[in-house]
């Protein structure tokens, strides 16, 4: 029986990717796709086409250079750094002035916020499928109560109350006493388990 990969640590995933486990690579992409997308499109505000190029470039570099990663548990910061570099390169290619010494204002703060968002996302994965789906549709895919209700064959009012209830559950899943707003590790990372 093959091990579950959605609960694997980053260290375990990287080790499996290195020996050619395609399932581990798929999980790695699933785990960090939103993160890379957010860095390119939200933090650096790249247009859609450039953001797509950066997205593919980042994962291509990660795949090709996994062997060079010294600390397997440091996958997230490595991905963040790679995404930053690729985004800066894209800005330069587009002709927009950008100094590496002076990146767009608030980049570090935005990245810290994304790290925190990854931790919330990891907690979301521990909720029931019903909660995961409704929260993901509403907050991450920006679907309306009506759209979600049609898809799930439920009244819009039920969707609203489910979102509210699931948000409370998600809050409870997050580390007890953890103050939201403080910098946190995200994803299913070794220091988060």
């Amino acid at each position, binding site marked *: 029986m093959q091990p579950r990969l959605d609960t694997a640590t980053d260290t375990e995933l990287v080790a499996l990717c290195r020996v050619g486990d395609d399932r581990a690579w798929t999980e790695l992409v699933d785990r960090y796709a*939103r993160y890379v997308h*957010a860095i390119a499109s939200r933090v650096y505000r790249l247009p859609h086409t450039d953001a*797509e190029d950066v997205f593919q470039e980042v994962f291509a570099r990660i795949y090709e250079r996994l062997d060079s990663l010294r600390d397997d548990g440091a996958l997230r910061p490595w991905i963040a750094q790679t995404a930053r570099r690729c985004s800066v390169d894209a800005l330069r290619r587009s002709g927009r002035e950008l100094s590496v010494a002076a990146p767009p204002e608030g980049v570090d703060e935005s990245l810290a916020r994304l790290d925190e968002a990854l931790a919330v996302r990891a907690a979301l994965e521990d909720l029931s499928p019903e909660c995961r789906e409704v929260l993901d549709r509403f907050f991450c895919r920006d679907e309306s109560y009506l759209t979600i209700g049609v898809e799930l064959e439920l009244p819009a009012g039920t969707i609203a109350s489910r979102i509210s209830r699931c948000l409370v559950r998600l809050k409870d899943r997050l580390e007890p006493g953890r103050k939201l707003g403080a910098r946190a590790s995200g994803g299913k990372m070794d220091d988060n388990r």
Partner: protein
Amino acid sequence: MTPEERIAELLRALPTPPKGWVEAAKELPAAHRGLATLVERIEHDERLRADAVADLEALLQAEGVEPTSAVVAHLRRRLAG
């Protein structure tokens, strides 16, 4: 801001990327395996190498490989190295 509002804000901070982007990234291992043979041929065939330098996307299409940005970037790095 309540904790629930903060959580909602953080969930919104990680939007779902287009499905095609994610699928393309997931196919990298298979794409790399498929390209290994082509890279070998390019490295040993000067004419093919010249074609690759002149128009890599066209060469890929002629070889039946979709020239996605990831594939093109990968090949450029391999051929430059």
